[in-house]
């Protein structure tokens, strides 16, 4: 077919699906986060590995795990600061994301790191961080109910009207 005089026809469209999905065996993590600002990991009954995010079975031993409440403090394993991103988040740049290993956990979870000093030298490996939560009523039992801040900014963040400390 000739490409000359080609004219394309475009149609505007969306794909939209609503969900009400179950968290299955991990439900306790989200319920305790929402109600009590607890960070519940799981510990393998056989090897003792502490999973965070939690798993109700240990993927290494194929054995059951048990719930274990973890402290709200931890350390950045690796991080970045995002300046350009997806359509859902582009209004929020810059923001920092980091893999954070909670004290006593063996695996790291992805979370946002909020800071008054959003620079690579402050948000980096080894930085001690502490969890800050949305106020009761604002928490929905989702990962966005909390975030981390550098330890030395903790008091400052929990004094803001929209947030509170957990412990």
């Amino acid at each position, binding site marked *: 077919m000739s490409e000359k005089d080609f004219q394309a026809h475009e149609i505007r469209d969306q794909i939209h699906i609503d969900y009400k999905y179950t968290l299955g065996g991990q439900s306790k993590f989200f319920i305790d986060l929402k109600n009590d600002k607890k960070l519940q990991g799981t510990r393998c009954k056989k090897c003792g590995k502490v999973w965070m995010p939690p798993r109700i079975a240990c993927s290494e031993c194929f054995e059951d795990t048990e719930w274990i409440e973890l402290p709200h403090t931890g350390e950045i394993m690796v991080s970045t600061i995002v300046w350009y991103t997806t359509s859902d988040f582009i209004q929020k740049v810059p923001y920092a994301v980091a893999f954070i290993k909670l004290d006593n956990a063996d695996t790291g979870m992805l979370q946002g790191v909020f800071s008054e000093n959003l620079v690579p030298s402050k948000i980096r490996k080894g930085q001690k961080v502490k969890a800050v939560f949305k106020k009761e009523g604002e928490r929905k039992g989702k*990962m966005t109910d909390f975030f981390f801040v550098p330890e030395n900014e903790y008091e400052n963040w929990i004094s803001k009207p929209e947030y509170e400390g957990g412990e």
Partner: protein
Amino acid sequence: MAIIGVGITPFKARYMNRTYFELAYDATKLALNDANENGASISHKDLETTVYGIYNELFERQFMPDIFINSYIGMNNKPGTRIASGGATGGYTVRMAYSEVASGLSDLCLCLGVEKCNDCYDEKTGTTTPEVLNAIAYSADMTYEYPMGMMAASSYVSMVNAHSEEFGNPTEKQMAMVSVKNHGNAMKNPKAQSPMEISVDDVLYSRIICYPFKMLDCCLYSEASAALILASEEKVKELGIEQPIWITGVGAANTDCFIGNREDLGRLYSNINAAKSAYKMAGLDYDNIKEQIDVAELHDAFSGQEVISYEELGFVKFGEGGPWIEQGYKNSGEGPWFEGELPCNPSGGLIGCGHAVGATGIMSTGEAALQLRENAGEHQVPIEKGRAISHSIGGPGAAYAAVIVMENEEGISNK
């Protein structure tokens, strides 16, 4: 078995005159033409089975897009299966096509990848990219990671930043050198989307995406299709193929998609395992691989990841990837540069060619095959050993990896 035909459409930001299945048809026709120039005399009716590499239903705005291609390319009433493994879709599709022929299920198999991302459109910014990135971000864990604003670049940058913390490299300058190399190589590739003659400073002062990746450290998303025709040894003889490119090694592995579960954040054991098993199958030595191959087409979705891949694929020791690209920047004849000791991405790679996800690894494999036929065009590199590799990675945390080893007749007899 051998690759007997290669078809690659130009990688472009946008094909206004093609749907994804029309693009898939174009690459199939190109691959058939190439096979026929390579001694065969076949049509689409001779193809016995198809393996489709298509990453993202949201790009194509169609679930099960493979069956619509199957209809369009005249493959009704024959077997066809689809592979979707993120950025590694292409490499994994070659692996499955290899299995189709190696198992004896098929003697003539079409390996076909396509992607058309830029139908996604962000109404708020009036541009495509944020919505393309959103369609990709749904590949992250939807409960724990997507809500944090995780995306492809922030996932890859985690590996690179962890590597830099451990070894002090790649530095931002060394990463920029990968960008200079691959954009520069693309100048010689007429199918490339982003040919550019640029400097290290041009990269360093381009727009920040996520620290320390800048705009020019990142590949662009493309629309394109790529196809290979694979034939069994018997079929190669029967058809009288002049330059069969034998697939002698196929390796794949998936590392943990949750980066926080990994013991070493600064490397992908998937790459290491995929490379080791592919080399072993081909009878090559991981510790001396650089001396055993002529060229490598790598998965440089982001400049820093190419540097780490030099190490994971065994070209240099861990921690020496950054210095290796820098050596070649200073001294022609060294490093992964076009004139270097092991040219990496003479096609321009993803940074130079663009990234049409499902098609990319098939393009890389096809490019390596054309190099071994000394038929790559202006970006042909010297072929002495008769061996090449292609490499694909992708998915959440770049968890998927595939490595393919190819050899021409000399490569096989050199062993």
